[in-house]
């Protein structure tokens, strides 16, 4: 018989902190009371969840990179932009399939576009870590300067390769339009974004909680030195996390480009404000916090945009201020040593 205690033998259990999740639900219910129309509320809620989950895909890597190595990567938006531009190029190649009225043909165009966006952004992340980040480990000011500089150079390279104009990134016919259920209109693309976002969150949660690599990442976020003293090479782990974070940002960028149906070189830079708000609200280094923070930001942006458009622009800053006044370390703070 195993010496390891079974769940029933080990009496004390950790209490999960559900308060932030309940706040998300509370905001949704409060918005329902203010909006008054069920169909409008469902449409806004799905839009908010889709926006939140797309932000989560883009932000999850950055929060781990910061948590694991204290690296402030202001060029994270570059990976988002590259993902979007690569998706544009691949969808051009598969133009006929992307424009066909067939789910299988559309999938045959979208899948390689998303895969290429993920892989190219990941490879760029590997190059970026080696050339730009590695020389400035532990030097925050230099990290801000050099990653911002790297982003400016890379944006100019995007101009050279894809040109300075805004490019269309049209959704294939399968993802256009909406499902109508009574008065409720559910946009197909937003539903697809929700499904992809939830699948990525589930995959990340599984890796972080059920694999040794995941344990090492969580341990490394808390205490890098002790992980090294146990015989693990944290630098290799960091490179892997950095590449995975860049790849996810590339995937998120491709999806965000489809969400907006257009791509500009500033697509990533524009997202960075929301991404920083999300990872700060969530607690730096916390993937669970990033997930809840992203949902909060997505829902609040959509509800406030409908209820009071004049304050929509500042609503997420206000949200961040309120959350930090309540929990200064974020919703799910990581204990760092």
């Amino acid at each position: 018989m195993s010496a390891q205690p079974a769940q029933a033998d080990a009496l004390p259990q950790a209490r999960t902190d559900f308060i932030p999740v309940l706040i998300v639900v509370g905001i949704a219910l409060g918005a329902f009371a203010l909006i008054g129309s069920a169909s409008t509320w469902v449409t806004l809620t799905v839009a908010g969840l889709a926006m939140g989950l797309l932000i989560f895909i883009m932000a999850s890597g950055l929060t781990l990179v910061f948590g694991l190595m204290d690296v402030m990567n202001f060029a994270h938006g570059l990976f988002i932009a590259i993902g979007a531009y690569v998706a544009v190029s691949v969808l051009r190649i598969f133009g006929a399939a992307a424009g066909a009225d067939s789910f299988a043909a559309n999938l045959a165009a979208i899948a390689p576009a998303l895969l290429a966006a993920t892989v190219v952004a990941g490879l760029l992340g590997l190059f970026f870590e080696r050339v730009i980040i590695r020389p400035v480990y532990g030097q925050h000011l230099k990290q801000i300067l050099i990653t911002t500089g790297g982003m400016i150079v890379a944006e100019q390279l995007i101009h050279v390769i894809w040109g300075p104009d805004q490019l269309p990134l049209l959704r294939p016919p399968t993802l256009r339009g909406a499902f109508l259920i009574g008065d409720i209109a559910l946009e197909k693309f937003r539903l697809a974004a929700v499904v992809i976002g939830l699948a990525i969150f589930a995959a990340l949660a599984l890796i972080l909680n059920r694999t040794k690599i995941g344990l090492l990442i969580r341990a490394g976020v808390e205490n890098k030195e002790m992980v090294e003293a146990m015989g693990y090479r944290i630098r290799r782990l960091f490179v892997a996390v950095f590449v995975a974070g860049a790849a996810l940002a590339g995937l998120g960028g491709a999806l965000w480009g489809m969400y907006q149906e257009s791509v500009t070189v500033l697509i990533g830079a524009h997202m960075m404000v929301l991404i920083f708000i999300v990872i700060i609200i969530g607690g730096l280094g916390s993937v669970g916090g990033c997930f809840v923070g992203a949902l909060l930001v997505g829902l609040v942006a959509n509800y406030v945009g409908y209820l009071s458009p004049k304050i929509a622009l500042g609503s997420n800053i206000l949200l961040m201020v309120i959350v930090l006044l309540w929990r200064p370390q974020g919703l799910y703070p990581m204990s760092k040593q």
Partner: protein
Amino acid sequence: MADALLALAGVHTHIGHYHILQGVDFAVPRGELTMLLGRNGAGKTTTLRTIMGLWPASAGSIHFDGADIARRPTPSIAELGIAYVPESMGIFAGLTVQENLLLAARSGPLDDARLEWIFRFFPAMKKFWFLPAGLLSGGQKQMLSISRSIVEPRKLILVDEPTKGLAPSIINNLIEAFRELKKTETTILMVEQNFHAARSLGDAVVVMDSGRIVHSGRMAELAADEALQTRLLGLSLEVHQ
């Protein structure tokens, strides 16, 4: 005397502009528990961290089991079979007791017999198996930190002030655990300020002052010589039991 598992010769360590270790020479006999004593600021913690490569030596040699490890990175030093229990305990607060031990078991899954052996010393580890380590008491955190270091057989364990800040009953518990551990002939280098614990457990002793070794010998001899204790440590072990 047993042969030396670890030997430091002329080790210097700088932290920023500070010259902390100023030519440290001592040996840790194989299969024994060596106590590293000294006043606050003498360089004891720096010595352990230098051995682990966390604050690399700027000069000198550190031989472990015949190999010079002074210029090696920390993970490859740990891979040689050296475990480190820092003064801060270094537990991963967000990970459960089980996950902390899983990470410490580098070579594979947890060994059941070894776990039973650990649970005998520290029953709290079994009771709080699924609890995040950050919710444990100070004494339980220390037990977890030590459990991690022995979850697999190690050649050498470096322990930094394991009894610091703990209640006397917990200290006695830890002393018993280290006595059991000594029976496995694991080599231990321990920094300790609690002289009762130091005298109870130590086979050999090394005393530091201002970044240098000022005495090395058998613990029994130091424990028996009050004048020597007062000269080296500024006080007598007898009055600090």
